[in-house]
């Protein structure tokens, strides 16, 4: 990872902290865990044009775990889809930055999400539609671990494998925590890599899901022909802010002013 990418990741983390602190609500934990993945997608991997967000044959990204919107907004803003001044209005009346991603209001959002399990199905339909329309583009979606308790995630995986969608990449943010506790406390997920493999996906392991180079390498790995790819990101919830890391309390809570300053100070040192 070069220095500029490192500074982008840090800036995105600062944006997430500031956005949620300014709004007084939002989901910092699961936003911080996917920063490297979103930066790798929007700054290196995806064929997109921030000045032409509806470019016809652009690659698509669907944030299936829509509550991690602050991460996506931060990346889109830093990438130039809209002014970073918008961050201050996150979750405010009339803002393009709704509590959950809204494709009708915010440039660069390819699908409205928030109800868990749906984004991966939308992405599956996009990938199938792209193939049927003979469009040469890639579709990416990010799902959460708690989200994978939704049966719909598995309906989508089954369909993606059935229709041999080798233009679809599912990123699986496995940070081990959800609102009410750890995955194991709430509803054990078991061997997710084995489950996704059994559903016909080509699973690529990323042992350190917050290591930019590892994430990018997994994204650059070509699809096995005829198979959708699933990138298993072993991440840390709240990554980059000591008191948030691996702490379930920070799933859906905003930092207060003192906590904001501490987080920003820690990020400054990184």
């Amino acid at each position: 990872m070069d220095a500029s990418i490192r500074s982008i990741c840090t800036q995105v983390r600062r944006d997430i902290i500031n956005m949620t602190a300014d709004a007084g609500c939002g989901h910092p934990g699961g936003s911080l865990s996917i920063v490297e993945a979103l930066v790798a997608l929007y700054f290196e991997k995806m064929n997109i044009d921030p000045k032409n967000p509806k470019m016809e044959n652009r690659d698509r990204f669907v944030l299936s775990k829509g509550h991690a919107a602050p991460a996506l907004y931060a990346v889109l803003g830093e990438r130039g889809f809209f002014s970073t001044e918008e961050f201050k209005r996150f979750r405010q009346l009339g803002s393009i930055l709704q509590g959950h991603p809204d494709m009708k209001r915010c440039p660069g959002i390819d699908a409205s999400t928030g109800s868990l399990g749906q984004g991966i199905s939308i992405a599956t339909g996009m990938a199938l539609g792209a193939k049927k329309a003979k469009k040469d583009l890639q579709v990416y979606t990010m799902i959460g671990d708690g989200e994978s308790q939704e049966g719909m995630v598995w309906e989508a995986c089954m369909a993606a494998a059935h229709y041999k969608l080798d233009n679809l990449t599912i990123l699986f943010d496995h940070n081990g925590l959800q609102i009410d506790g750890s995955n194991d406390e709430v509803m054990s997920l078991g061997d997710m890599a084995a489950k996704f493999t059994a559903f016909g996906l080509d699973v690529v392991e990323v042992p350190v899901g917050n290591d930019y180079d590892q994430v990018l390498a997994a994204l650059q790995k070509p699809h096995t022909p005829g198979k959708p790819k699933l990138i298993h990101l072993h991440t840390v919830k709240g990554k980059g802010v000591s008191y948030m890391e691996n702490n379930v309390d920070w799933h859906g809570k905003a930092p207060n002013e003192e906590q904001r300053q501490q987080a920003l100070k820690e990020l400054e040192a990184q």
Partner: protein
Amino acid sequence: MEKKATRVAYGEYVAKLGDTNEKLVVLDADLAGATMTKYFKKAHPDRFIDCGIAEANMVDMAAGMSTMGFIPFCSTFAVFAGRAYDQIRNTVCYPKMNVKLAFTHAGITLGEDGGSHQALEDIALMRALPNMTVFVPCDAKETERCVDAAIAINGPVYIRLARLPSPVFEMDMPFIPGKVNVLREGTDEVLLCCGVMVSECMAAAELLAAQGKNVCVVNAHTLKPFDEEGVRELAKKHKHIYSVEEHNVVGGLGDAAAAALVNMDGVELTKLGMQDVFGESGKPADLLRKYKLDAQGIADTVMGK
């Protein structure tokens, strides 16, 4: 009079349109032989997507396909509108996606499969969603007009279709989305109806005419946007309106009419339909008779019997 189920008309017509409209794709959830999307599947196998028995995923995949320029028609049984409701709400209606839902086997005329499969709430569910248009065609010809209108609309559309073969009206019926259609002029009560109830109401009008009643029959094929003004116009000329639907009287045609009439004096509305009960197994004709939704039952109710 020729009889044809609206689901058959839908299946045949969307397959025919697929010959010239390459944007059409059809998704089904393992019911192509029942929803009649089998015709499209045969004619355009490359644009037919079987989603397996996974209705929720079907609806969201359709939304995804619509972003690639396709006009997807999703079909399954109307009773599964509830099963995929979160998807219809959040992924089709909230972002106003160009997805069409042509759901079949609605109402008690589904018959023998029984109460678990007879959708009596789908109109209510769909009417409650912003951005949604809701059509309930009365016969095969009107089904084709509804499909045309659905394609012309850039946004979500629900079309409620029936299993039961029903008469195909010989008369020319103008079809203007969002406007009620007077099929039979009359000076006494109004029978305001939709779907397969239209032919029952037309037959009821004949029975009533024989008893000296001259009722007016009005087809309300568009449940949303609902023609409130048209219904108020009817109420200015007729003292008593009967809404007749093969749906729960909660949230359907009757309630749409009630909302239109709420501030009008001197008009009476009686809601005929399923009186907040589930259906049951039986032959469609027997069910219609039991719930007084056949021509005789409707006529008897109007005569106060």
